[in-house]
């Protein structure tokens, strides 16, 4: 601490002197702010930052304000490094009604909440391509559950959450033909295509279940936020393509002066559900759950969902006109204001929940769209932020009544006051910001302090790496009146939305090991003396243990060509940060990475005879390089008996004899 106090000013002075030789500009200002992002070696960051991986399909975990990457959590995409989607135990996590899908596009994250505040239990992510939502356990930092969504395509307005984690939602960015005959001409969009919004209940232990689906007119549902405080019980969705175009949307979905925000009274929908007014529909979707005791996932195909049609069951849904293809749709911490960013509009409309309720009571409607009332724009409007910038996308909030909106086209963050709608400050981002994140900035209790920009384009910001460049994040200090850039850092995949929460909410609960006593994987062996190799027809099951630094058994003979070999490896370690890896030469598969106390299984189908080494891939001790073994594969029909051993040495070789 003392060294740091002495060293830091010296470092900064040195840095300032150094930069004094350069032309003055952004860089010298950034150097002056460097201390704010500096987290000394061995010290912890103040916030965890969970960042969507976009087309990587994963969720990454950074520290704020240092920008250090701690972990990439595999969610929707296979991860050979961790054996996720390759081990027999994790394969079912990626099962869908289409079979095994090894990739998806994870756009947004949300956190479980209690009373509108982040509670640190779970993070959720959405799969945009093959519509799914996932729950990540924040004790283990692993994907615990994945639920596929029927009647859906392009699950984009997801997995946003209500203030007591009653529901996460999933809305269709791509409307599609739903139910009955779906083999229809694409040009019949207006007649046959529907949007759906799923309300997915979150159980006490986090269990996900589709409570009901709303059947809606065919438009593109884009983003969404739950109401909070006074607006708790409502959910707000932005929608574009109210033109209902089915081709060249770039032009054809940008015709109308206004699209919509959809306000959903989900408490009303619950009443209809209680009164059994929903219609049960036969569908097909996968529900995958990982069990931490068996260390295995199970995938169950479900076949029913309850659908509610708000055009028939009234008082659930209302459209509100919103200028020009709205994207972000964000509720402020008080729950009174809803900010919708028309990405092609020159203003940001801010709606008032109170006025919206009055408009509904007064039936201040201008008509209907797809059987759903459309509230008059002015009747729900609190006001417009005038000339804020070009291409407004998303808005986050601090605890002082300010909003921070990202502008893709003009590449900047603009700070404005929610009540007065006055623009207070603006800073450039490098370049083309998409989402942005204030810790707790989507909840009733924002922690403020920083806003992080997630940029789509970095161009000249880093050393070039060929045609494909990294995306980036940039951290701005927002504790003062003016936003100050303090750090930027590259990200994995393409980050869309991200969330951040104080480290204290998670770090004390972080799991260190899986207790070996609780391991109930059917193939676990909890003692070297129980390690064995068993043949069942052409399947050879190897019950193997690992500990620093050997496998038991480590010599196996009697495997034959045509066999399927299953290595079931139990890591007997009970110490934090001691996984063992496992790999076998020639496997058309990945490695295993087995946590202390865990059992994981690698399937291997040998393609030739010979002796095949296996080894530990994760440096585990001074004798890690010795952690290896051999498997002998003989021809089909060979009479080499099935044997296994550990520590049994061969006879001395006589190299002079032949």
């Amino acid at each position: 601490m003392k060294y740091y106090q002495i060293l830091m000013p010296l470092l900064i002075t040195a840095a300032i002197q150094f930069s004094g030789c350069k032309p003055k500009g952004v860089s010298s200002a950034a150097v002056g702010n460097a201390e704010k992002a500096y987290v000394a070696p061995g010290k912890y960051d103040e916030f965890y930052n969970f960042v969507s991986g976009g087309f990587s399909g994963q969720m990454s975990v950074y520290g704020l304000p240092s920008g250090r990457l701690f972990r990439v959590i595999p969610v929707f995409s296979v991860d050979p490094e961790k054996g996720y989607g390759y081990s027999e135990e994790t394969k079912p996590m990626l099962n869908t009604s289409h079979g095994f899908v090894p990739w998806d596009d994870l756009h947004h994250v949300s956190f479980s909440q209690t009373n509108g505040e982040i509670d640190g239990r779970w993070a959720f992510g959405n799969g945009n391509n093959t519509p799914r939502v996932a729950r990540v356990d924040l004790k283990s930092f692993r994907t615990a559950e994945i639920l596929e969504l029927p009647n859906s395509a392009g699950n984009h307005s997801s997995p946003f959450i209500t203030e007591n984690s009653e529901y996460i939602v999933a809305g269709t960015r791509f409307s599609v033909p739903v139910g009955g005959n779906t083999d229809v001409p694409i040009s019949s969009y207006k007649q046959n295509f529907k949007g759906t919004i799923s309300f997915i209940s979150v159980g006490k232990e986090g269990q996900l279940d589709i409570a009901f689906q709303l059947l809606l007119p065919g438009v593109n549902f884009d983003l969404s936020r739950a109401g909070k405080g006074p607006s708790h019980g409502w959910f707000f969705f932005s929608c574009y393509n109210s033109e209902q175009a089915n081709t060249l949307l770039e032009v054809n979905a940008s015709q109308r002066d206004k699209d919509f925000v959809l306000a959903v009274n989900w408490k009303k929908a619950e009443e209809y559900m209680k009164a059994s007014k929903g219609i049960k529909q036969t569908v097909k979707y996968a529900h995958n759950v990982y069990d931490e005791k068996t260390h295995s996932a199970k995938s169950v195909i479900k076949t029913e969902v309850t659908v509610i049609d708000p055009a028939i069951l009234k008082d659930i849904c209302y459209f509100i006109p919103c200028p020009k293809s709205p994207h972000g749709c964000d509720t402020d911490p008080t729950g009174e204001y809803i900010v919708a960013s028309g990405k092609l509009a020159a203003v940001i409309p801010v709606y008032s929940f109170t006025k919206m309720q009055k408009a509904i009571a007064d039936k201040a409607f201008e008509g209907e769209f797809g059987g759903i009332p459309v509230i008059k724009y002015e009747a729900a409007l609190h006001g417009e932020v005038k000339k804020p910038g070009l291409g407004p996308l998303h808005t986050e909030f601090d605890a002082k009544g300010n909003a921070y909106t990202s502008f893709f086209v003009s590449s900047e963050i603009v700070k404005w006051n929610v009540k007065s709608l006055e623009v207070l400050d603006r800073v450039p981002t490098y370049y083309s910001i998409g989402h942005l994140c204030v810790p707790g900035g989507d909840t009733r209790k924002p922690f403020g302090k920083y806003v992080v920009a997630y940029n789509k384009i970095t161009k000249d910001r880093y050393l070039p790496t060929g045609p494909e460049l990294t995306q980036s994040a940039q951290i701005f200090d927002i504790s003062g009146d003016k936003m100050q850039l303090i750090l930027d850092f590259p990200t994995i995949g393409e980050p869309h939305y991200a969330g951040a929460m104080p480290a204290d909410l998670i770090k004390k609960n972080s799991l260190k090991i899986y207790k070996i006593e609780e391991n109930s994987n059917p193939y676990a062996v909890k003692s070297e003396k129980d390690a064995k190799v068993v043949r069942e027809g052409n399947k050879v099951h190897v019950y193997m243990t690992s500990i620093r630094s050997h496998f038991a058994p480590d010599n196996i003979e009697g495997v034959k060509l045509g066999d399927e070999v299953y290595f079931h490896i139990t890591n007997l370690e009970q110490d934090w940060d001691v996984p063992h890896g496992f790999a076998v030469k020639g496997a058309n598969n990945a490695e295993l990475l087995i946590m202390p106390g865990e059992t994981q299984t690698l399937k291997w189908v040998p393609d030739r005879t010979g002796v095949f080494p296996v080894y530990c891939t994760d440096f585990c001790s001074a004798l890690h390089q010795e952690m290896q073994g051999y498997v002998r594969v003989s021809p089909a029909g060979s009479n080499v008996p099935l044997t296994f051993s550990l520590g049994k040495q061969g006879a001395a070789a006589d190299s002079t004899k032949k």
Partner: protein
Amino acid sequence: MKKIFILLFVIGFVYACGNNSGSKPAAVVSDAATSATDNGNPSHDPNRGIGKFTKIDVPPQLDAGMATSGNTIYDTKCASCHKLTDERLVGPGWKDVTKRRTPEWIMNFATNPDEMLSKDPQAMAQLEICLVRMPNQNLSDDDARHVFEFMRKNDGIK
């Protein structure tokens, strides 16, 4: 400063008593009183190692129940590296270990290997021979005691 010392003394007293219900309180108090360290434990004694166990009362006869439980724990958490003979595998064989080491040293090493391996001269000397740091296998206090009883059984105590 005095207050802190008294507080440490009291913590040490409560802690020691809480973990050694079968031992004689008087002996423990005098131990703790000699010199309390910042973790409330008495200062380092090379025969006792570093950890929470300061005084284990070992009756002359074997507790067969504890030894059986210790055997089960041994199979899962120890047997991969320690044989019951005097043969060294990854770690030393266990034969006669209860004659070479005090119960406190063994139980402290089993439950607090990281600190022992970086501070205790005997543990450090052993590491130079084996070169693999003994893993922390997350033994509870009772687990450690049961494993020790199993070691006694292995050394012929009846």
